[in-house]
């Protein structure tokens, strides 16, 4: 379930960023920003280490786990002579947001933040999502009314991203 999709330019500023649950938008912006560091690391590592493996698809960047802890009630236990508090923790909601990255040859990065709480998305599905993103981005790039470096305002691109966010959920 893709919750946030971002396209980031060569100079590391966002060309397009959209997330599905509108209330947590800032958190997703922050998430994408932090994944950029991981992307940079992977790019530079590939350059030095193996010259053969020059994959554009970077794969799983790193999973995060956001714990939302809701204490229901406190139990005070008298255990003479010490008294301890036990916080009965119920309703631990685990949001596992996994980020996937992909770099193009023109150093434009795509980041997808997916919520894999229900089903873990297979590698192939993520790859096909990136392929679709890359194709639409190429179409935007070839549009003569688009100046490279501007934010993407193409309706076709918007509808493709919406379809991807809805379909995967």
């Amino acid at each position: 379930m893709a919750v946030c999709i971002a396209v980031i330019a060569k100079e590391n500023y966002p060309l397009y960023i959209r997330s599905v649950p509108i209330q947590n938008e800032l958190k997703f912006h922050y998430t994408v920003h932090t994944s950029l560091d991981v992307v940079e690391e992977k790019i530079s590592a590939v350059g030095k280490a193996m010259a053969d493996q020059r994959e554009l698809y970077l794969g799983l960047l790193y999973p995060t786990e956001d714990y939302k802890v809701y204490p229901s009630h406190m139990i005070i236990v008298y255990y003479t002579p010490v008294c301890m508090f036990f916080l009965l923790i119920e309703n631990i909601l685990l949001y596992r947001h996994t980020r996937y990255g992909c770099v193009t040859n023109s150093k434009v990065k795509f980041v997808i933040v997916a919520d894999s709480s229900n089903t873990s998305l297979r590698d192939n599905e993520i790859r096909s999502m990136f392929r679709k993103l890359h194709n639409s981005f190429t179409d935007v790039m070839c549009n003569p009314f688009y100046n490279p470096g501007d934010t993407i305002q193409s309706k076709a691109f918007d509808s493709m991203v919406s379809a991807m966010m809805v379909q995967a959920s």
Partner: protein
Amino acid sequence: MADDVLFEFLHMEMVYHIYKDQASRGEMDKDRATCVSTLEGMGFRVGQGLIERFTKDSPSFKDDLDVMKFICKDFWINVFRKQIDNLRTNHQGTYVLQDNKFALLTQFSNGKQYLEEAPKYLAYSCGLVRGALSNLGMDCVVTAEVSLMPSCKFQVVIQKI
């Protein structure tokens, strides 16, 4: 195959149109430079878009020489239906690409006739190469020279900061 010819005609008309515009306003000397830069700018934007499409599925490039080889082979084949015949480098950021039968110059002459008109028709292709390289992360200056039609040399000097 008639489709190569379509672009050649369009290109000829483009050059003619831009020079006609400037000529009607007078002041020939200064405007020659602006015509060339207009054509080069057009080529630049097209080169950027083309590169995005051509490198969609290919793996990332190891170094500058790898990029230049890609330009000489795949890029040139896709745009001009043939490869660059000769690539020379001084390994310090300067590359010379030689095309012995440049597609946009073949119809002019087979020797030295019309040599002074040739630079107008090379400006767009210089911009094309410059746009392609800039989208791959290499800032450079591309110039072209013709000594004997239809062969020409493109010189690429990579700007290192």
